[in-house]
Structure formats: C-alpha cells, structure tokens
C-alpha cells in the first residue's frame, strides 16, 4: 500500500463527502425556563429558601454577639479556644447566609433574560489613525530632533534621563548595609582562655559536667557584655559533645583540639547557615534540620550526606586551672556558609 492510498483511506467523512462551504452560526441555545419560572409553587419554595438563608445569617450574627458577651476569651487556653470557635461560627453563618442567599436569589428568582452584547472591531477608523500619525510627525518636526538641529538639547536630555535612575539605585544599594567590612565574618568572639557557657543560662561548663553522650549548647562566657550580643551569638554558637574517646578518630594535627573525648563544633551549617543540632548519640551523626546535611562527629564532622560541602569548623578547647572548659583560640577558618572572599 503506498502513501497516497493510506492518506485516502484515513479521510473519513460522516456526511459522505458533503462539507458545507461555511458553518452556520448555531446562535444562542434555546432559552430553558427554570422551575421557578414555570411553577409558582417552586418559586414560592425558592423564596422561602432565600428567606431561610438570610434568617440563618441573622441567627449567626446574633450568635456572634451572644458569644462576644457570654463567652469572653478569659485566661485559659480552653476558654480562648471556645471563644474563638463561637465567634468564628457566628461570623461564618452571618456572612455565608447573606452570600448563599444572594446567589440563590439571583439564580432562581431574578429574571434570566439572555442579552447579547455585540463585539466591536478594535481597530480605529482609518481617518483617526492617519490623524494621530500626522500629530506625532508634526511634533517630531517641531522639536528638530530628527534632522540634526538642536544637538545641545538632545545631548542634555539624554544625559538627564540616563542619570535619573541613580536617585533610585544609590539609596537602594546604600541602604543594604552601610558596613562593607566582610572581615568580621572571618572572626568570632572566641579567644584563648574564654570559657564555654551554657545556652541560655550563661553558666560556665566544667569538663567533669560533660558525661559521655552529653550534648551542651554553648555560648561564649560573658556574651551579654559584647557590643552586639545577638550578632556575636549568631556566629559563635557551638555544640559541645562528649564521645567515648575510643569512638573518636582524630587527625594528628587536631589531636590537641579536643579534651578527653569532648569536642566542640560550630553549630552553623556550612551549607546555608542553619543551626545544626540534631545529634544522634548512637551513630554520632549530627543532622541539619533544613536540608538534611549530616556530619559525622566521630570523624572530624565530615559531611556524610546532604548538600553541605565542608565539615563543620572545630573550636579547639582545653581546660583552665579551675577545670572549666575554655577555648584555645578562635575557629581556624570562617564559620558558616561559603562566600567568595572566604579564604582570601
């Protein structure tokens, strides 16, 4: 079977090959009378339904007012909930009754005459279009822009228009920060000898307090006396974990950064900076709640799952003469998400 045959076979005409040259406009569908138009009893019924819906709204409003006066929110959670529920139900029926009643009224009882609004062509008449073009051309000729006259005015206008956006752009960019010193992201308030303290109480932590399997959420001691305590806290928060020293695998250069199985890692995720604090004691895995980055605390907090690309920075710690845990120094790398000047 060749191609021409198959295309002929596929051409099926229901009317035996007789297609009209032009389809007739089928016009508006026949008007069907509604039940309420034909039957007075149905109309009466619809009227009663609409009235009932409006009455429901009235009852809802009265209920709302009653609830407002009789069931005040009070002090307990249960009474606040009851008050909210009753006010909400009253308001619901008050509004819904009016809305449903109005729609039902319009659909069943108001006239349903069909009206036809013809569309008009959108194109303006030829005379109007020619007139508009003539006005534009006259204006252009009058300004003299097109024919090389008034070069000074042309240059001045282009300069003025080009400069105007600066009045929007400069305040917008200027208001971003005022402080363009990115150096502060490289340092935290941790210093040699600064004690590790509990968040939120601020009490210092002794090494003997940290039992195996414990997790302490740590802020620097004396954080409140910093100039911007919250800004500093956002960078300096640390998670303190004690592992069985046998479970801890440390690289030789970081061997001295822990104390008897106690390790301290920055709590700020190296992906986008969420607080990483879901610690699984048995697997030594530390999860970030935002994007499920998982860090292995037993192996230098290296990334074992998720979008983070770098291990959490470790805070080198030791104990002071009174047995309190102290930092040996600041973090040795910037904490938190990567940014392009990070290691410059």
């Amino acid at each position, binding site marked *: 079977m060749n191609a021409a045959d198959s295309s002929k076979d596929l051409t099926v005409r229901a009317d035996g090959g007789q297609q009209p040259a032009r389809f007739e406009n089928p016009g508006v569908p026949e008007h*069907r009378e*509604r*039940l*309420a138009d034909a039957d007075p009893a149905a109309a009466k019924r619809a009227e009663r339904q609409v009235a009932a819906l409006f009455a429901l709204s009235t009852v809802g409003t009265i209920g709302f007012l009653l609830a407002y006066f009789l069931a005040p929110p009070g002090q*307990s*959670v*249960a009474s*606040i*909930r009851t008050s*909210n*529920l009753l006010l*909400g139900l009253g308001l619901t029926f008050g509004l819904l009754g009016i809305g449903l009643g109005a*729609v039902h009224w319009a*659909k*069943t009882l108001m006239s*349903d005459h069909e009206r036809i609004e013809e569309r008009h062509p959108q194109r303006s008449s030829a005379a109007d279009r020619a007139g508009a073009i003539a006005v534009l051309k006259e204006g252009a000729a009058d300004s003299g822009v097109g024919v090389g006259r008034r070069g000074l005015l042309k240059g001045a206008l282009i300069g003025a228009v080009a400069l105007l956006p600066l009045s929007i752009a400069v305040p917008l960019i200027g208001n971003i920060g005022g402080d363009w010193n990115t150096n502060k992201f490289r340092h935290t308030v941790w210093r040699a000898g600064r004690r590790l303290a*509990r*968040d*939120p*109480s601020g009490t210092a932590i*002794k090494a*003997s*307090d*940290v*039992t*195996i*399997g*414990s*997790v*302490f*959420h740590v802020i620097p001691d004396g954080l409140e006396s910093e100039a911007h305590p919250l800004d500093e806290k956002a960078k300096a928060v640390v998670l303190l*974990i004690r592992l069985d020293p046998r479970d801890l695998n440390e690289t030789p250069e970081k061997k001295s950064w822990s104390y008897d199985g106690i390790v301290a890692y920055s709590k700020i995720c190296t992906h986008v900076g969420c*607080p990483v*604090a*879901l*610690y*699984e*004691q*048995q*697997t030594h*895995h530390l*999860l970030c*709640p935002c994007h*499920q980055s*998982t860090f292995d605390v037993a192996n230098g907090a290296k990334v074992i*799952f998720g979008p983070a690309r770098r291990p959490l920075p470790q805070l080198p710690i030791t104990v002071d003469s009174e047995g309190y845990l102290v930092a040996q120094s600041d973090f040795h790398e910037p904490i938190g998400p990567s940014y392009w000047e990070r290691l410059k």
Partner: protein
Amino acid sequence: MKARAARRYHRFAPVALLLGALLAVGAGYAALTGGPAAAAAPTADDIAAGSQLFRANCATCHGPSASGSRNAPSLIGVGAAAVDFQVGTGRMPMHANGPQAPAKPVQFDQQQISQLAAYVASLGAGPAVPTAEQVDAALGNPANGMALFRTNCAMCHNAVGGGGALSQGKYAPALWQTTPSHIFEAMLTGPQSMPVFSNANLSDQEKRDVIAYLVAQREGSPGGADLGSLGPVSEGLWVWVVGLGLLIGAAVWVGAKSS
C-alpha cells in the same frame, strides 16, 4: 415494667452504656496503674525477682550478666531510671532489631518493672527513678522551660513537642502522651539516639521547668485544631486542598445554570 423496658430500648441507651463502660474501664485502669513508681528501697527479694525476669526476657540480647553483646549495649551502670523508661514505655523488650525501638504496649506490670530496675541498679551505680516531687509540673516554670526546650530539645522534638524525623528511619517521638516521669528519665539517661542531659547540664529544677512547659502544651492550641503542630506542610495541605477545593466548588455553583 413497661416503662422500664421502654427506657432500656431508648435510642441513646447504647451511647449511655458505652460511656458508662468507658468510665468504668478508665477508673479501673487509673486505680491499677495510678501513682508514681514506689520509691521504697528495693529489697533483696526484689533484686532476685528482677534477676529472674532479666534472664527470662532480656539476657538474650543484653547477655546473661547484662554486660551487653554485639546487638545490645551493656546495662551495667545505666541505673534504675533507664530501665523504668525503656520497659515502662514498652520500648524494651524490643520487638525486632531495627534502627529504633518504638514505644509499644507495656509488657510488664509496675511491680515487675521496679524489680527489673532494682536488679539493673544493683549491677552498678546509675541514675535512680525520680520522685514525684522531681517531676511535678506544678513546681516548674514553663517560661524558663520553653527557653531550655527551644535550645536543647526543639530541633528534634519540634517546638511544642510534636516529634520529628531523624536519619534512616529513626525519629524523635511526640511528647504529648509521655508521662512527666518518663520525660525526666529520658533526659537523664539519653535513650537510643537521644543525647544525655545529665544534672550537670540541666539541673533538677531545669528538668522540672521543661516538664512544666511540655505539660502546658497539652492544653492544645488557642487557635483550635493544630493539625499535628507540623508547621507549614500540614497547614498548607489543608489550605490548598480543602480551602481551595471549597472555593472552586463555590465558584462552580455560582456559575452553574439554575434549573
């Protein structure tokens, strides 16, 4: 006689009967299990009975001397609190090896749990079962409890204790139903994936504050249904599916031809 028979077949009779039966069962249950674990010092008989129970129910995994095996940790030094939590919430004996031992119906009565706890406590010093005063939410400060819970617990257990997922099938359970005593023991002993919050980290008073905060959450949300307190996922599902569905239905009804 006829009046009584009629009342017996009143259509609300089954409802009333059911309510009565539920009340009776609840009251009986409360009478049987009520009250915190007896803090009386365990006798040698208790320890002996606990040893029997241990060998029959726990030794398969934890070893005949409770020193642990490849599949289960040593129980020497975990203390009575760990036993009361693990057995008292039904987590132990574990029904199958898996990433997490889920809470399930409790396998022993309170006396047997106390005997087991006494036996394990006799193996090595460990945290004891808390007294009723240590876990009394009325003595705690829920506001301080909220600050502590937000810092130490909320990342896993959700801001109001609704629970949440961990890795590889593990999860932090919801705390709505957990008794204050079990909450205290969990903080003290760090069961399963949970880290330990010893008394040097969260003091007795701070633990009581956390319990007070959690108990305060059980009153529910002042806004009505909290949809599991799961945040934008459940709320979004409700708004997008149910709320928008209703709006679309209303729009279809407004536009439909009336008959």
